[in-house]
């Protein structure tokens, strides 16, 4: 008897790149707005960033249906948290929740590559970076998605993060100002857009600081 093998895949890669950079009192999260499938473009104006809590924003790339499902789940869990604890979830708390949610589907994963950006309980910028099954780490900056291989080394060079192995632990957040960090992010995407076909169209930048949340857009190459 011949073995039945699936003729279709439950996964698809809808592309896109996400970046987050933590500063002393702000956090910049950014993602492009192109959604693709194979060599086709489905949408030129699709947001990959979602605000999960007042001080916590998530950018995700990968398989869009899984990303949507993940966003819905986390938003629902946050609502329950608010009902139960009468307060917003902190970014580190959301970070743990996201990791657990991803691992819950360890044997049929959410094909979603996430970065979480926000402010921790002391008001300092915090960035968490994830793989598809929930392994995560707090870092000073990160990128995920189709353009991450192009952006990450550039960020490593520009932000000169101290080794996480040093004792005493050194602060990973960048001393750059908010404007400098936003400018750096724009440079990253302008470069990634040149060589990654899935990163293009528009860049959406979300900045979280003590004054609240601020969104801006930048045009990218559309080809």
């Amino acid at each position, binding site marked *: 008897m011949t073995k039945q093998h699936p003729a279709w895949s*439950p996964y698809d890669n809808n592309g896109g790149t996400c970046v987050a950079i933590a500063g002393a009192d702000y956090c910049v999260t950014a993602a492009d707005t192109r*959604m693709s499938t194979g060599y086709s473009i489905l949408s030129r104006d699709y947001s990959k960033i979602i605000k999960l809590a007042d001080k916590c924003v998530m950018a995700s790339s990968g398989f869009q249906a899984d990303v949507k499902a993940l966003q819905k789940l986390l938003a629902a869990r946050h609502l329950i948290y608010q009902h139960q604890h009468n307060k917003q979830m902190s970014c580190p708390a959301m970070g743990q929740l996201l990791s657990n949610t991803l691992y819950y589907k360890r044997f049929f994963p959410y094909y979603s590559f996430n970065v979480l950006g926000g402010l921790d309980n002391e008001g300092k910028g915090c960035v968490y970076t994830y793989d598809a099954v929930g392994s995560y780490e707090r870092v000073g900056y990160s990128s995920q998605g189709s353009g991450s291989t192009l952006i990450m080394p550039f960020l490593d060079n520009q932000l000169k993060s101290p080794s996480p192995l040093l004792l005493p632990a050194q602060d990973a957040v960048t001393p750059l100002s908010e404007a400098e960090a936003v400018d750096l992010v724009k440079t990253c995407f302008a470069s990634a857009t040149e060589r990654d076909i899935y990163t293009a169209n528009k860049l959406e930048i979300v900045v979280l600081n003590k004054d609240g949340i601020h969104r801006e857009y930048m045009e990218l190459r559309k080809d």
Partner: protein
Amino acid sequence: MESIQAKQGLVGPNDPIQRTQLPYVTGTSVVALKYKDGILMAADMGGSYGSTIRYKSVERIKPIGKHSLLGASGEISDFQELLRNLDELILYDNMWDDGNSLGPKELHSYLTRVMYNRRNKFDPLWNSLVLGGVKNGQKYLGMVSMIGVNFEDSHVATGFGNHLARPILRDEWHENLSYEDGVKLLEKCMRVLLYRDRSAVNKLQIAKITEEGTTISQPYALKTFWGFTAFQNPTAGAEGSW
């Protein structure tokens, strides 16, 4: 106790559960766009059985509730199953009798969840769906694929339409298209699909939905032109080919 050897292609009693993995009777592209007063959607009436065009009067666009149109490409039987689900949904919505009714956004969300959950069970509804509608003056147009990928835009297309119609729409669509211009644009897309998609048939319906309601046109055919000189002697430039 000996297990019965399953014959090739037949399901034996001890075989693992199998599910449909391939579509049988399929519809080809659906193309839709937003225009001044609402949504215009077009689809031909073909139902292909592999490479045969078996059915030529399949209605692939249906009105759902008061505010939406659903167009589907892919497996026709799965589309019909979906319509039964939606019938029940609309029925319960009407039974509330509270003056409220499911709009296109809600239906799009519902369909996305249905498609995604079926994909999670490895038993997908083999369709690409286009959901368009108008409610309270707000126009809405969205798409869901068979694995749950969904988005909304000013113009959408499924299947071959993605490759052939979308570029035309990206170039020529603009806000506040008149009804006539919208229809002309859709017909241009459908004509290209007719020429280049082998599973397209020259019998299509164009559906319109506005705040006032839905109209689905009678089936009609597009005018085509085959008198190009290049078609006259197709191997002129490459003797020996066909």
